[in-house]
C-alpha cells in the first residue's frame, strides 16, 4: 500500500520517521500508560528527547538546533503522538510555541541568547496566552504590562498552560495599551525565579494526563525591556503566528493517533473472534477500519501540504488551520471507533485506545477549537478573511544555511 511517506517524503524524512517511531516504541510506550494513570509528567524522557535533538529539531544549527525542516518536525510529532499526546505536546509547546516565535520575531541578540539553551534542553519553555476569562477571544485577555523605565511590570493570570509547572522559561502575553484591544497586546519572555512569578498544576483532566497543565500567576513581575519579543502592540500577531507553528504539530500528531488506532484495531480485529470468525470479517467492523484509513490518507496529505508551505516560507495559516481541524476531528473519530472495535476491552486502560480517545477530546479544543477553525475556513472561502504580510515572516527552510 503506497503511503504519503513513500510518495512525498525524502529518504532523509523516512530515516527521521524510523528513528522517531523507534524512540516512541522503545522509550515512550513502555512507560506512558503508567504516567497517564498516575497523572505524572515523564521527566525521564526530556533528557533523551533533548539529546536526540527533538527539542530544537527545526532550528538552525547556528542557534543550537538540529537544522532539519518543518516536515521533519511533523514526522517527529506524528511519531511521538503515536505513543501519547502528552509527549508530542511537550515538543509543540517548547519548540513551536516558544523557541520558534523567538526565531521568527526575536532580535539577533535574543536568538543567540535564548535559543541554544532551548534547543539543547537546558531550558524547558512554555507559552502563556489563555486566561481564566480569555480563550478563543484573545483580545479579551486581562494581563497587564506597564512600562517603567527600562522594565515592564507584568500582572495577571494565565490558565490551561501546558508545562506551566515544568518550564523555566515563559512566553506570556499582556496588554501594554489596554484601550487598544488586540493591538494593545505585547509579548514577553519571563524566567522562573523572578519575583512575583508563581506557577501551579491543574488537576482533574479528562485526558493528556501525562502532560503538565497548569497556571501562571504574575504579581508585579519586573521584566527587562530586552525580554519583550517583537514590538510593543505586536503581541496578537505573534500569538497568531505561534498558533500556525503549534497547530501544525497538533495536526501531524493527530495523524499519529489515527495510525496508532488503526494498528491496534487491525491487530485486535484479526485476533478477536465472534460468531465463529474474526471480527475483522464483520462488515461493520470493516467500515470503521476503512473510515480510519480514509482519514489517515487525507490527514497525511494535509500535513504534508502545510509542512511544504512552511518549508517554502509561504504563509500557511489557512492550510495549517485546515490540517489541524480535519486531523484532530479525524483522530477523535478514529479513537472512538477503535474503542468500539475493542468492545469492553477498549473501555479499559488495558489497551491504549481509551487513552487516545480521552486525549483527542482535548485536541479538538486547544490551539483553536474546531468551531474556530470552521469559522476561519468559511471566512477564507467567502473572501471575508485575508492574511496580511507579517513584519517578521517565518523564514523559509534553507538546508545550507540551517545546517
Amino acid at each position, binding site marked *: 500500500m503506497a503511503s504519503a511517506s513513500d510518495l512525498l517524503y*525524502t*529518504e*532523509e524524512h523516512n*530515516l*527521521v520517521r*524510523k*528513528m522517531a517511531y*523507534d*524512540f516512541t516504541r522503545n522509550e515512550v510506550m513502555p512507560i506512558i500508560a503508567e504516567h497517564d494513570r498516575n497523572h505524572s509528567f515523564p521527566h525521564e524522557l526530556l533528557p533523551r528527547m533533548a539529546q*536526540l*535533538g527533538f527539542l530544537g*529539531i527545526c532550528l538552525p544549527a547556528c542557534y543550537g538546533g*538540529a*537544522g*532539519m525542516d518543518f516536515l*521533519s518536525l511533523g514526522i517527529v510529532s506524528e511519531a511521538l503522538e503515536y505513543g501519547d499526546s502528552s509527549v508530542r505536546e511537550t515538543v509543540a509547546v517548547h519548540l513551536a510555541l516558544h523557541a520558534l516565535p523567538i526565531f521568527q520575531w526575536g532580535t539577533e541578540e535574543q536568538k543567540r541568547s535564548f535559543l541554544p539553551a532551548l534547543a539543547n534542553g537546558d531550558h524547558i519553555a512554555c507559552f502563556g496566552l489563555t486566561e481564566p476569562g480569555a480563550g478563543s477571544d484573545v483580545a479579551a485577555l486581562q494581563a497587564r504590562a506597564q512600562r517603567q523605565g527600562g522594565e515592564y511590570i507584568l500582572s495577571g493570570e494565565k490558565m490551561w498552560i501546558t508545562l506551566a509547572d515544568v518550564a523555566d522559561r515563559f512566553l506570556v502575553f499582556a496588554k501594554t495599551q489596554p484601550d487598544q484591544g488586540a493591538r494593545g497586546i505585547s509579548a514577553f519572555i519571563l524566567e522562573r525565579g523572578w519575583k512575583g512569578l508563581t506557577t501551579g498544576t491543574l488537576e482533574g483532566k479528562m485526558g493528556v494526563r501525562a502532560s503538565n497543565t497548569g497556571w501562571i500567576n504574575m504579581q508585579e513581575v519586573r521584566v527587562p525591556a530586552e525580554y519583550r519579543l517583537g514590538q510593543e502592540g505586536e503581541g496578537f500577531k505573534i500569538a497568531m503566528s505561534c498558533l500556525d507553528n503549534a497547530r501544525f504539530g497538533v495536526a501531524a500528531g493527530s495523524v499519529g493517533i489515527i495510525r496508532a488506532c488503526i494498528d491496534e484495531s487491525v491487530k485486535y480485529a484479526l485476533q478477536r473472534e465472534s460468531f465463529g470468525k474474526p471480527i475483522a470479517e464483520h462488515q461493520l467492523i470493516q467500515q470503521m477500519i476503512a473510515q480510519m484509513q480514509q482519514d489517515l490518507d487525507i490527514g497525511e496529505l494535509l500535513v504534508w501540504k502545510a509542512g511544504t508551505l512552511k518549508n517554502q516560507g509561504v504563509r500557511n495559516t489557512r492550510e495549517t488551520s485546515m490540517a489541524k481541524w480535519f486531523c484532530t476531528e479525524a483522530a477523535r473519530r478514529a479513537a472512538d471507533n477503535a474503542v468500539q472495535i475493542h468492545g469492553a476491552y477498549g473501555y479499559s486502560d488495558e489497551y491504549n485506545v481509551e487513552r487516545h480517545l480521552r486525549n483527542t477530546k482535548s485536541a479538538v479544543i486547544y490551539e483553536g477549537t474546531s468551531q474556530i477553525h470552521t469559522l476561519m475556513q468559511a471566512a477564507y472561502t467567502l473572501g471575508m478573511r485575508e492574511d496580511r504580510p507579517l513584519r517578521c515572516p517565518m523564514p523559509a527552510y534553507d538546508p545550507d544555511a540551517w*545546517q
Partner: protein
Amino acid sequence: MNIAVLIKQTPDTAELPKISVEEARSGELRATMVLNPWDEFAVEEAIDLSDRFGCQTTAVSMGRADETDALKHALAMGVENALLVDDEVASGGDEWAAADALAAAVMKVGEERDVELVLAGKMSVDGNSGVIFAGVACKLGWDLLVNVTRIVDIADGKLIAEQAFEGGQETVEVPLPVVISVAKEINEPRYPSFMGIRKASRASIPVLGSADLQVAASCTAQWTDLEKPEVEQVQVRIIEGDSVEEKAARLADALMAEKVI
C-alpha cells in the same frame, strides 16, 4: 587499525510471521526492512571503538543493489563508510558462499583502510544460521571470538575481550586481526542522530560485484524445500490465588511441572 562491521538487512521482527513461503523463496519480501537487530549491537560497538581508539569504521552488507536501508541506518548511527556486496556474487550459494563474498569485501576494504577487526551480530533474525561470521573468519584466516560482552582494550597489536559462556565469563587476549561476534549485553545501541541522518541520506553507497571481489558462488548446500511451521495452538491458563505470593508459587509449580524451569 580499522573496523569492518558486517550487517544484514532483515524484515522488521514484528512482520516476520506475515512473510509467505513464496516471498522467502523469491526474495521479494513485502515487509518493512530494517537493520538486523543483532547487528545493531555490532554497529554500536564499532562506533564506540572508533571514539575510543580513533579507528575508521565501514559497514559491509550483502544484498540486492537497492537494499541499502540497513547500511543507511548504520551510517545514520555514526559508521563512517558503507559498502554493499551485490548478492548476485553469492547467487544460489549457501552460507559458505556468503562468507566467501563478505570476506573478500573485507579484504577489499582493507586495501584502502587497514582492517584488523571485523564485528558482527550473533545471527540474523530471518536466516538464523549464526555461522556467517565464523565462515568469514575462516576465509580470512583470522582468529574468532564469539559472544563477546565487552571489548576491554586494543593495544600493541592485541585485543582483550570478555566472552560470556553458559554459567560464566572469561577474559581473553587475542592477536589482531580478529573476527568478533557480539552479544546483546555489550552495549545499548544508539538512535541515529539528525546529523547522521543527513549524512546517510546523501551518501552514495558503492556496490561490489563478482568482478570486484574475484569470488565464485559455491552451493554445497541448497534449499530443497521450504515451509512455514504450523501455527502453534496456545492455551491460556490463569493462575488463581488469594495473594500475589500464592499466585507466584503456583505459577512456579506449573512452570516446573511443564519443565519450563
